[in-house]
């Protein structure tokens, strides 16, 4: 925990610090140790330990209510929006504890972006305003810089060509898949180090889903991506690592090929082959 009060501009100018080199490969963005989370009396996450590998896609799978959303939200402290949550254990982002007392959750969320299940562009804003709203509300005023970042983010989200002439139109005028890519562009515009995606395709048709999956594949060159999915085939297609959660516990975690072809745990196999969940 060295620089908790980093500003956006600093984040922008200096790329993410390289992960500590003292580990043997692969480099990890998150190191989660003995993480438990309670909502009131209910324990949603039970003693989870796992490392999220940098510049790779990690998929979280498991039946409904198994804690996958809680887990992914714990990676940028979004789960704290629910009252009466309690956390035990540590989550290290490049070695810094997210839950240390002097860490501002807003700074955590600037470094760890999030895309939600339901696309949620702000209805009062145009497409362009939606993309740069994160920078604007964090105090960036430089028009030239904002315009550059606007185009860059939309290009990265593979949306630029479709909307470049309609930037002033309302964000809600786009189709569902475009709205979701707009939300991805909005998250990318603040240049996070990690992108969390909570079932980003579950409300989309197959063509829009394919576009987002392709996008996820391209984005992992620059970002570490953690995604929750209900769709087993999708986890198989897009992810490098897969974590299987059941009843708040991490049952198995490893390379996706191994989890899908040769799982070590019986429960994992049952779930993947569709015997339950």
């Amino acid at each position: 925990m060295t620089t908790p009060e980093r500003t956006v501009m600093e984040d922008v100018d200096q790329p993410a610090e390289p992960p500590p080199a003292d580990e043997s490969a692969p480099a990890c963005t998150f190191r989660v140790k003995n993480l438990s989370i309670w909502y009131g009396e209910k324990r949603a996450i039970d003693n989870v330990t796992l490392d999220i590998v940098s510049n790779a896609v990690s998929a979280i799978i498991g039946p409904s209510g198994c804690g996958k959303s809680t887990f992914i939200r714990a990676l940028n402290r979004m789960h704290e929006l629910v009252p009466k949550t309690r956390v035990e254990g540590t989550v290290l982002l490049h070695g810094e504890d997210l839950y240390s007392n002097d860490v501002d959750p807003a700074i955590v969320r600037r470094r760890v972006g999030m895309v939600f299940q339901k696309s949620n562009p702000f209805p009062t804003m145009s497409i362009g305003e939606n993309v740069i709203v994160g920078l604007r509300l964090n105090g960036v005023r430089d028009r030239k810089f904002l315009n550059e970042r606007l185009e860059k983010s939309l290009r990265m989200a593979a949306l630029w060509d479709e909307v470049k002439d309609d930037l002033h139109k309302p964000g809600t005028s786009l189709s569902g898949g475009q709205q979701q890519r707009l939300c991805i562009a909005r998250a990318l515009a603040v240049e996070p180090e990690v992108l969390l995606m909570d079932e980003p395709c579950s409300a989309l048709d197959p063509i829009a889903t394919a576009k987002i999956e392709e996008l996820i594949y391209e984005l992992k060159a620059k970002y570490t991506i953690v995604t929750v999915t209900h769709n087993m085939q999708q986890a198989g297609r897009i992810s490098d690592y897969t974590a299987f959660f059941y009843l708040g516990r991490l049952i198995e975690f490893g390379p996706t090929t191994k989890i899908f072809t040769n799982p070590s745990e019986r429960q994992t196999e049952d779930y993947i082959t569709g015997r339950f969940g």
Partner: protein
Amino acid sequence: MRFERAHHHTWRKIKSGLVSTIAFVSALLVIAPLGLVFFHLLVNGAGSVNWDFFTKLPAPVGAAGGGMVNAIVGTLELLALAGAIGIPVGVLGGIYLAEYGSARINSILRFLADVLNGIPSITWGVVVYGLVVLRFKGFSAYAGGLALSLIMIPLILRTTEEVVLLVPNGYREAALALGVSRWKTIVHIVMKTASKGIITGILLALARVGGETAPLLFTAFGNRFWNHSLSQPIAALPLQIFTYAISPYDDWHRQAWAGALVLVTGVFCVNVIVRVLTRGRAASVV
């Protein structure tokens, strides 16, 4: 089931027709007073609404002509004072109820706000008379504005709370997930999304208190001349109407009718503005 029992079908049709007729007549009965009042005001007041009415001070008893410009301006001043206190307190209170606070305390606050909304408006006049007028030894525009603001606060508070709660949680989460602070999220995302609803609540509250007479009797008191200081008694349209209507002079009666017509038209216009504002409601969520 077959279709053989046709007479049941007929009987059902008759019942249906009967009930819709009753509903239609009830609806007419609700709207009729509005039409009658407006018609009556037009017949009795339209003749006296002229340029002088909006530009001249009241004429002395017996002298023809004169207007109510001081009362019209006075009402606007009182509304400005009431808004200056009532809008910020009401809006901020509504946001507190919707975004902060614990569920139990909030339900108590909500209940109390509803109780306040039900208090007869003359009570507020008496309260402010005791708190302000007696203490500062005089009726004043400030006292009148305060009395009106006390009526506005619970109204604005409840409408603000309701429209802020209508803003889907996804927008709050989206903003917070960008690293935007809580208060900036509330101001720039939540309030902006709910702005039409909040403005509607404010306008309706202003329209409501603009026609209040009772709370001004003990506070603003009324004034036949220009008000030169907010710490002096001030004229207000409803007060002037009240005074003129109970007077024995025909001239004043005509002026009272005109005043009532102007007041009702003003309130009507505010409601039309509200309708226009909320027309695009479906498109912009709130």
